């Protein structure tokens, strides 16, 4: 099906199996992995797959480094949060907030792009950093509107909340509004992902790759490079905003820490690099690995620390508080051994 849809398959049997496993795992997550924690993780994976893929559109396909991706993510999230707060609980608020966030993100990306992409790619990176920092500060200062550091807590339609229970049980799990909410997130994320996969394989997407490879020559064969770069920036911002709206619908809470923080920006960057830049599929794999590591590495380490109590140094190294250290070690190893990312590595293997 995916082959028909974009013509850009995994091109490696191992990769295909991994992707099918991820797809099935996410599609049946509420029933395969019952429990609140697992469902939270699955939803987080769905959202971050879209977010990382939208960043790959920029970084991997167009060769533009941006540090404002979380800002666009945040715009989508705050759009939903503000609309739900002011319009009141309901689907119209979700729709209006999503559209407003999307429009704001695309407009801002257009301005930043037109302003800075004419000059030099490095200039764009710096501008995005400056604008993103300014927006983060602004959001924490404008507490009357945004709730400041505390963020906003709001209500979403009843049908999507845990209190709503259907008289339906599948595989021993009662279907609640939370599960419906999960499927909303999953389905929208799936559609967005497939659309992005389609875009990178379109004539437009190929031009982006040409620009990444050699912008000078792309211009010399007749492509208006600046326009393509600005369009790519706007598209990427739009998809990021949609991911943010999904995240806000799922969390029922929006704050600087969950959407705008620089740590999330780094997470996205690492997801794309570890998964494999310029493949879109890599974003999916990177997002799964990162989110799983963040959610379960600490627990796993606590278990390992307990098991190795006899060896004091090892036990201390495996202390759950050291989980960031080990995450760092994993990153360095993966970038060192898979410079083209997991997808690049697996495809190279399959091509041999």
């Amino acid at each position, binding site marked *: 099906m995916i082959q028909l849809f974009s013509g850009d398959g995994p091109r490696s049997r191992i990769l295909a199996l991994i992707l099918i496993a991820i797809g099935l795992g996410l599609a049946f997550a509420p029933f395969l992995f019952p429990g609140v924690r697992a469902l939270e993780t699955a939803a987080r994976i769905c959202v971050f797959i879209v977010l990382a893929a939208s960043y790959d559109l920029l970084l991997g396909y167009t060769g533009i480094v941006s540090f404002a991706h979380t800002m666009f993510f945040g715009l989508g999230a705050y759009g939903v949060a503000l609309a739900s707060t002011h319009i009141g609980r309901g689907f119209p608020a979700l729709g209006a907030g999503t559209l407003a966030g999307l429009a704001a993100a695309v407009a801002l990306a257009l301005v930043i792009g037109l302003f800075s992409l004419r000059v030099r790619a490095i200039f764009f990176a710096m501008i995005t950093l400056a604008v993103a920092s300014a927006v983060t500060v602004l959001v924490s200062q404008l507490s009357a509107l945004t709730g400041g550091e505390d963020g906003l807590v709001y209500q979403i339609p009843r049908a999507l909340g845990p209190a709503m229970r259907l008289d339906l049980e599948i595989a021993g799990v009662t279907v609640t509004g939370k599960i419906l909410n999960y499927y909303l997130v999953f389905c929208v994320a799936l559609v967005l992902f497939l659309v992005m996969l389609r875009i990178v*394989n379109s*004539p437009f997407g*190929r031009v982006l790759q040409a620009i*990444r*490879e*050699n912008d000078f*020559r792309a*211009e*010399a064969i007749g492509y208006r490079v600046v326009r393509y770069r600005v369009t790519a920036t706007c598209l990427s911002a739009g998809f990021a905003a949609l991911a943010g709206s999904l995240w806000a619908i799922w969390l029922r809470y929006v704050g600087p820490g969950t959407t705008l923080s620089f740590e999330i920006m780094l997470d996205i960057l690492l997801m794309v690099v570890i998964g494999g830049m310029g493949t879109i599929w890599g974003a999916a794999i990177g997002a799964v690995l990162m989110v799983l590591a963040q959610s379960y590495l600490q627990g796993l380490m606590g278990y390992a620390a307990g098991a190795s109590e006899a060896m004091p140094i090892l036990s201390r190294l495996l202390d759950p508080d050291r989980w960031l250290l080990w995450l760092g070690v994993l990153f360095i190893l993966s970038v060192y051994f898979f410079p083209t990312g997991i997808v690049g590595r697996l495809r190279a293997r399959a091509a041999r």
Partner: protein
Amino acid sequence: MTDTLLDTKDLSVRFGGHVAVDAVTCGFRAGELTAIVGPNGAGKTTYFNLISGQIAASAGKVRLEGRDITRRGVSERCRLGIGRAFQLTNLFPGLSVFENLRLVVQAKRGRGTSLLRLAGADREVAREAEAILSQVRLEPFAAQPVSELSHGNQRKLEVALLIALDPLVYMFDEPTAGMSIDEAPVVLDLIAGLKARADRTILLVEHKMDVIRSLADRIIVLHNGALAADGPPAEVMASAVVQEAYMGRELDHG
């Protein structure tokens, strides 16, 4: 002259105090291959850059079919019909040979803006790219990334990209530089084949005299950025002034 495709009028560019191209006025007719010669640093490549738009002129005009294009950008000049192959190979290294050509055909046909169609599904573009691929005999390498290609084949592809673009003005900047003796003729045959197109004009920067002798209808000589000679090959090459002052020893060997 009604069939002048491209002409430059008093075209100049200064870099600080240095005049790199100095008031060059010259017309290029359809159906003609003009070789541009001159010692290193004479301003040949800079003159090319001014015509194709990589460098903005300090003074003077560039006209295509009588239309002033001096202030137009690189990509717009390309769409209007000025095509350029580069001295240093300048391809899309991570993409396949076929994709390099496909991108050029896609650019020529103005089909790069579609977001939701599939690039591979455009059979028209693909067929044209395939045709050029076989014309330059690079089919065996179609799926290879350009970065893995030999230097000679990269030069061939460089010329092929320009053929795929099929501009009104073909500009070749030392197309056989660094190619082996048995590889160069393929590229030269391709350029010779283009001369059959009576509605195109070809500009060729070249050092090798045998190449110029076999291809050129006309030679212009640049020296210190200025036009020093202009005429049929035999005449220009025979002129003692040109031989001594501008061509150096290369011509004596040629």
